[in-house]
């Protein structure tokens, strides 16, 4: 379909890429359909090429997950790698790093009045750049930002989007995406019908590329306008945040922990041995631990060197978020499912063993 290849289709008169049957070519469905369905861009299908990556950054540095994603983008791109960077003037200091990780062209989006991540504004500006660039694929890191922004862009472009991919491969311009489903027990392979093909990628999935020092590229600076700006009343950075995804050793607590005091003791122990504390869903649900510390399909994916599971049964849900090199399971139940994944199983009561570990450290 290439009925309307220039600019945005603002009115219903243009059959956008989304209505392949063309049933909304007459004006009457304007009144019953929401406006955003009709306002889809129709990207040129024959010439779409290259990979566009949303560069998540805080103005000083790029998000830790970006390098791996850029490395993968370089590998799968049949053409150029474009980076879209929303940042102030200080964003220039990131150029060299981006080029060395494989970016050919940077679109540096600047608007001095935008201080925070503004999803709707960013999505509008990204859709605009997509129209100019015509990428075959668009990638985001599956961080909270990326997972909010990507669907906004996808709906604007009428594009297919796959969430939280753990595998990306290319067949020419075609993107083959894999993502775990049903608690990670199934790997689904997903393809998009049209260009651009969009995906958010689970952070930490791909290794960081070896930077190619001195590699050059092009950077364009572009202004953008704000749309439906979010009014921020106050902002607070989390302080002393335990980022369980970066932990080398995790002490993880589950349903076998029956009193709150043991949770406190586990934190004490973690501090002593240089570990972080995580949990399974039960402890987050009952409020003893924050959801940000929850491991599992509805929580975070962690990949520590050592995972010490205290009283965790090992549900399908929980195991989906666990990629530890080594697992020690402390459980009263010799047949707990987690023991099937563990390297060492200690049959016993979590509470007493945590206490004994603290005691042993004191000695």
């Amino acid at each position, binding site marked *: 379909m290439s009925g309307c290849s220039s600019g945005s289709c603002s009115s219903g008169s243009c059959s956008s890429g989304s209505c392949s049957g063309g*049933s909304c070519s007459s004006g009457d469905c304007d009144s019953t359909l929401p406006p955003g369905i009709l306002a889809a861009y129709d990207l040129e299908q024959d010439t779409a090429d290259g990979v566009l990556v949303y560069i998540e950054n805080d103005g000083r540095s790029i998000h830790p997950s970006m390098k791996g994603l850029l490395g993968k983008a370089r590998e799968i791109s049949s053409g150029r790698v474009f980076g879209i960077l929303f940042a102030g003037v200080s964003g220039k200091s990131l150029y060299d790093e981006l080029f060395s990780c494989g970016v050919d062209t940077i679109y540096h989006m600047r608007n001095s009045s935008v201080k925070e991540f503004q999803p709707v504004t960013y999505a509008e500006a990204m859709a605009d750049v997509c129209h100019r660039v015509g990428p075959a694929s668009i990638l985001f890191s599956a961080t909270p930002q990326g997972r909010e922004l990507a669907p906004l862009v*996808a709906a604007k472009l009428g594009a297919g989007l796959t969430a939280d991919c753990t595998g990306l491969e290319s067949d020419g311009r075609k993107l083959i995406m894999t993502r*775990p489903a049903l608690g990670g027990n199934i790997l689904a392979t997903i393809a998009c019908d049209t260009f651009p093909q969009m995906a958010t990628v689970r952070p930490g999935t791909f290794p960081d590329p070896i930077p190619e020092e001195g590699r050059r590229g092009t950077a364009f600076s572009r202004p953008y306008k704000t749309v439906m700006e979010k009014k921020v009343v106050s902002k607070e950075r*989390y302080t002393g945040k335990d980022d369980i995804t970066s932990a080398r050793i995790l002490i993880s607590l589950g349903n076998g922990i029956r009193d709150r005091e043991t949770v406190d003791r586990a934190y004490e122990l973690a501090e002593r041995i240089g570990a972080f504390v995580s949990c399974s869903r039960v402890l987050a649900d009952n409020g003893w631990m924050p959801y940000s510390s929850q491991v599992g399909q509805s929580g975070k994916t962690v990949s520590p060197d050592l995972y010490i599971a205290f009283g965790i049964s090992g549900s399908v849900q929980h195991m989906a978020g666990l990629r530890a090199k080594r697992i020690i399971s402390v459980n009263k139940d010799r047949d707990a499912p987690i023991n099937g994944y563990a390297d*060492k199983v200690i049959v016993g009561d979590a509470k007493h063993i945590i206490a004994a570990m603290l005691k042993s450290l004191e000695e």
Partner: protein
Amino acid sequence: MSEPRIIVLMKEVPDIDLVTISDEGRLERENVPSVADPFCMMALGHAIRMKKDMGAHVTAVTMGPPHAEGMMRRCLEYGTDEAILLTDRAFAGADTLATARALGCFLKGQNYDYVFCGVQATDGDTGQVPPELSSILEIPIYSYVSDIDLTDGVRMTQMYEDECLVIDAPPKAVVSFIRYPETNIPLPSMTDFIDARKKDVTVMNAWMLGMPLNMIGSKGSRTRVTGIATVLKRKKEPVFIEGNDVSLAAKEILKEVGI
């Protein structure tokens, strides 16, 4: 602000906690009951609280198979003013974009101030429908909301990866909620139960909503699942340490830590 109109999007999902893996590595999904998604329940809880605190009008909506009517009945018991079930074979096989489009077509014809939903559902975990829906309706999206403060207009707390924002959230907007332990759904009262008996779940199909069939369901989807592989997880033969000597066990773990 007086009496906002809230539409809560509900989803019925298999209770994933009860899904187990057989020894051959297959998923045992037989006889696993369906439940209302816990993220949706957060959204419902906030809506019901706003109804009790400031008289909001709350409508619960789901798109799903006919048996989701049971969940919608329970929404009425929790105190929603209306419950609507969108059910049609034409909706089947929808990806997130086609789902958002169908919901968008429904919402276009509704009078609302806020659309409340869970940030994601526990079965698919994509979290894509709420932003896609907001884009289609051309209204703002407030994601990862943990709390609403009504003392000074409508203010919401959003939890991003390393910062939390308090924002002004005037209507109209799509709001997606994360699970946060402080939020409890007010339990239905006896009068809610009795009132619910007088109400019916409204059932609507694609035709009644005026949806073009090529935009919804599998026809309206832009992604295709081209293959499914079962991941055979490596089963290990762990070393078992048994007995009642906790200090020995403690030392064993500390040895692993390198202490």
